[in-house]
């Protein structure tokens, strides 16, 4: 099994939009999708397993073993023209080859459901502390770029979008599926042991834009309370980083010359 996609039920969708957010920097994509799944009561309809995922399993708080996996949820509402398919998971493939193969297979499967547009959620890593995160965007065609701008999204001129969240928008373009990638601005901190620091503020910024674009109502109160909790932690990390930079500057001789190669 290089990639195994298990669909739990036969589905028919009404002009669906696909929204993708796998774990990555700041977990911006994953937090955004998880929040939508919870608030909209989206229903799980598919699971993706792969040899390209990290080779460990998770033991959860109830003592149950879980394989690393990606999941597909759907949300339907008669009032909306488009059903939503939400793609997330507890991991993404480790190697470039795996990321290509999984993204390709998932897209191919979902295209059979008539997906009309893709929204991929990722992180935009800045080099300065982020007071109010901005949302950057890239798209498969100029019309979508202009559309993004009307929602206050800043066009991403140059840069890279690493991992599956970026790759999937590139693959979508090759399959003539239109879409955009929305990137929440984050400092992209990691703990000393290498764990990703979840940036709720960045996810909230993306959620504000995305829900407006989709025209759906989402209760933002729960994420607001989480913003306060995580902001304090991130502020401490920023202070520690700033202090460290000052110490480096103070201990570096003013006439210190560097080798340039």
């Amino acid at each position: 099994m290089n990639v195994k996609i298990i669909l739990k039920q036969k589905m028919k969708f009404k002009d669906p939009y696909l929204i993708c957010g796998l774990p990555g920097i700041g977990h911006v994509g994953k937090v955004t999708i998880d929040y939508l799944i919870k608030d909209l009561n989206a229903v799980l309809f598919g699971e993706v397993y792969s040899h390209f995922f990290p080779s460990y399993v998770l033991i959860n708080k109830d003592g149950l073993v879980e394989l690393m996996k990606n999941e597909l949820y759907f949300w339907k509402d008669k009032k909306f023209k488009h059903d939503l398919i939400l793609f997330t998971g507890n991991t993404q493939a480790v190697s470039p080859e795996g990321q290509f193969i999984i993204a390709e297979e998932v897209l191919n499967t979902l295209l059979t459901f008539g997906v009309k547009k893709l929204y991929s959620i990722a992180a935009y890593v800045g080099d300065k502390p982020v007071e109010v995160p901005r949302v950057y965007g890239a798209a498969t065609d100029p019309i979508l770029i202009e559309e993004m701008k009307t929602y206050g999204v800043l066009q991403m001129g140059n840069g890279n979008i690493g991992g599956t969240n970026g790759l999937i928008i590139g693959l979508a373009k090759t399959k003539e599926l239109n879409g955009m990638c929305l990137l929440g601005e984050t400092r992209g901190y990691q703990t000393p042991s290498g764990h990703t620091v979840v940036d709720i503020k960045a996810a909230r910024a993306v959620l504000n834009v995305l829900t407006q674009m989709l025209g759906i109502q989402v209760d933002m109160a729960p994420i607001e309370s989480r913003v306060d909790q995580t902001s304090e932690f991130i502020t401490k990390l920023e202070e520690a980083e700033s202090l460290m930079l000052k110490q480096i500057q103070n201990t570096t001789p003013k006439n210190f010359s560097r080798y340039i190669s």
Partner: protein
Amino acid sequence: MSKTIWVKHFRNSKLNEPIAIVGSPGLRSIGKLTIDYLVKKLQAKLIAELYSTYFPLIFHTKPSYASHPRLLGDAGVSIRKSELAFPRIQFHSSTFPDLLLINGYHANFNGQYAVAEKVLDLFEEYNVKKMIVLAGHGGKGNEICCAATNLKLIQELKEKYGLEVEYQGSFYGFSGLVFGLAKLRSIESICLFGKTESTSGEAESPDENAVSVILKYLSRILKIDL
């Protein structure tokens, strides 16, 4: 060499729906040591060995079970009692009760899932319906804790044996993957985690005390004197 995983059968298994017991050289080698002890104590018979081009003899990751896509290791053979031996997974059988004892081995990143799937294919051939995985954890809490593939099994472990769910987090390597993939195949499985401490630099150095604790509980679960 076109095949990547192959199995050599030594004798026919006469087991009837055996319980598979799985261990591998993971944290403090608790799983492997417990299987070694069971094989010896129960005078289990070697029925098959699984070999793979994904098995490094020399691991480039430390510990061996922390696989990495760019650190695939080096192949090779070991000499055991003047005989050449490939790295391998061994399957032993024992009766009363019918047990299939698996001494695992960690494949490199490219083959970990494939090897675990092949082992589960063999379980289907041997008609395995239940599995017990043995491993160690370096967390806090009691001397032993448990995990399972469903909540009914967890409840049973709590009520019958006083085991608790304490460890939460990742479970690396061969045994973890066999445990997780067994869930997809509806093989009812439990895991006993012996509490241990990782020693600096040598995560796989033996912890005999944790093995003794696991054996104590295993003896009660299997209703055999160990």
